[in-house]
């Protein structure tokens, strides 16, 4: 049984012009110990998806369909109290910007203790011991339990957030762009740290980012999202080396490289579609180089071939009777 099964998940945002379909019919599964990266531009729904899985959605976002099954239990059917008991023990979340997620008026130690008290009934001594332990796991000297967020550098703050996420040894750690505020050296160091911890503690990771190169050496599988849908899903190497969807190919083309001869790149022309009034047929059709008749009329399904799934008529031709 998979650790996590997301079935036909749909999330809409209420807007003055009608509901925006931020996440449409997403299906994903995650095994224990697996690292899944979800990649896409801003506005593609990846963060909304992450929040939906973690049951952290608030107005104006709302579930409109599907289920999230964790260890056989449907999270969408739990009461807030039951969810609270599971939070942090089973699933924890590392937010995007540590400077915004850490309380500037409490020391790191106080925040770790706060998290412990909220989800366990440990005594002060055990809390202190565990806090020091998790900080050491992320290579922060426990003396920093007394420090405040502003006294730590960007990389350290982000690692402190990861430490907080690991307090109760969850089975799944979800990360929302944890490296986007960091410089390249700190980024590399953080990713290595996460990988190291994953090997040692065996938790699964769902990592949301707009920059696929950051996860390219660490993720087992990669899902590419566009306008609320998963358009390609497969093992990391499959998606990188044999990208099938035109959008994925476009993304791969948009990375300037330090290797090889210099060459001109074009990126992907146009803008993502409106989620309130999406175009008929394939959502990527307006920007696709290979678009043809069927694309504008019929929305393609996500079709799996040997573990590598694509949502595209070019890849999975539809026979029109």
């Amino acid at each position: 049984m998979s650790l996590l099964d997301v079935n036909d998940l749909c999330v809409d945002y209420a807007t003055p012009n009608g509901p925006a379909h931020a996440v449409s019919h997403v299906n994903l599964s995650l095994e224990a110990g697996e690292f899944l990266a979800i990649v896409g531009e801003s506005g593609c729904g990846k963060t909304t998806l992450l929040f939906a899985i973690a049951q952290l959605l608030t107005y104006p976002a709302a579930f409109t369909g599907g289920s999230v099954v964790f260890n056989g239990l449907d999270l969408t059917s739990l009461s807030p109290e039951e969810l609270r008991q599971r939070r942090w023990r089973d699933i924890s979340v590392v937010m995007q910007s540590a400077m915004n997620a850490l309380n500037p008026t409490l020391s790191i130690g106080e925040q770790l203790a706060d998290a412990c008290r909220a989800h366990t009934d440990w005594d002060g001594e055990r809390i202190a011991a565990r806090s020091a332990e998790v900080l050491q796991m992320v290579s922060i000297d426990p003396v920093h339990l007394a420090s405040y967020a502003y006294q730590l550098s960007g990389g350290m703050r982000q690692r402190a957030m990861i430490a907080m996420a690991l307090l109760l040894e969850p089975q799944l750690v979800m990360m929302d762009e944890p490296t986007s505020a960091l410089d390249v050296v700190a980024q590399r160091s953080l990713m290595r740290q996460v990988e190291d911890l994953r090997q040692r503690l065996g938790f699964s990771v769902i990592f949301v980012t707009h920059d696929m190169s950051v996860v390219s050496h660490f993720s087992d599988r990669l899902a590419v999202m566009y306008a609320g849908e998963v358009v390609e899903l497969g093992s990391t190497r499959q998606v990188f080396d044999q990208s099938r969807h035109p959008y994925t190919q476009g993304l791969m083309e948009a990375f300037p490289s330090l290797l090889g001869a210099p060459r001109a790149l074009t990126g992907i022309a146009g803008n993502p579609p409106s989620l309130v009034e999406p175009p008929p047929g394939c959502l990527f059709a307006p920007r696709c180089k290979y678009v043809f008749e069927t694309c504008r009329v019929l929305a393609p399904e996500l079709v799996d071939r040997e573990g590598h799934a694509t949502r595209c008529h070019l890849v999975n031709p539809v026979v029109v009777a």
Partner: protein
Amino acid sequence: MSEVLGVEELSRHFRVGGFRSRGTLHAVDDVTFTIAAGEIVALVGESGSGKSTIARVLAGLYPPTSGRITFEGQVLGTRFTRETRGRMPMVFQDPFGSINPVLRVGHGLLRALKLHRPDISRDQRVDEAVTLLEKVGLSPGGDVMTRYPHELSGGQRQRLGFAQALASRPSLILADEPVSMLDVSIRIGLLNVMKELRDSEGVSLLYITHDLASARYVADRMIVLYAGRVAEEGLTEEVIATPQHPYTQLLMSSAPDPRLPLSEDVEHSDLGEPPKVIDPHAGCRFAPRCPLVRDECRHVDPPRVDVSATHHAVCFAVAESWASR
């Protein structure tokens, strides 16, 4: 090629701390470089390297603590004239913060034209504004002018920043991390705009970034900055092909490239934190993190080593390896 900008021994220090722990933060120390006409020069460094400070000094937002700036043949004083500001405008990093949210898109553009192009009439200004918007890929220009900033995407706002910079017919545009806050897939579009400006308008650009790969994509020459000082400088392809300074090598190996296997030679214990340079003593500032560090690095400022006519590094280890050739 004629020189547009000459920066000599530029330093900028800040006083920091309260009553008890007063100190001087050396954000930039003795930085020297030039920019020629029609050239894109990248200033590469992590946060704390001093790159943004240099940009702000050049934009006239703070005066230098010491050093000289020569622009278009004239030495600049501490207060910049409106004309200088027009010839050397700045494009900011944050697409949300750099445009006033309560005023329409056309406002800043028209103001820039009004201030710097007194030769054209009011109606011509509107036409010119529309042309500028189209040059940076925002079309239809007339329509975009009437929108509010929150109706534009991040990439579009940054293009607007370039349009505003172009309004004053600059010879050099200072671009302070213009793509860092944009999605990776959008960056290429802006980087191409920059190249286009160089090629068709003959404008030089100082591109400030922490991303080596994008620097390689647009820049003709690169300057690598560490803790306020120049570590390495040279033609882009030379620096990328044969990086000399250990810091440049660290940056190259840390940059994630999916086509490469994960390089194992980056020390795991290097946790990537450049220092805040307060009241420094002499010596190389990279010494605490350098794999090639030797004794003299800690006490004596490293020398400049010319690796070729167009490439130099500031490092004892490099000096040693070149001396033995």
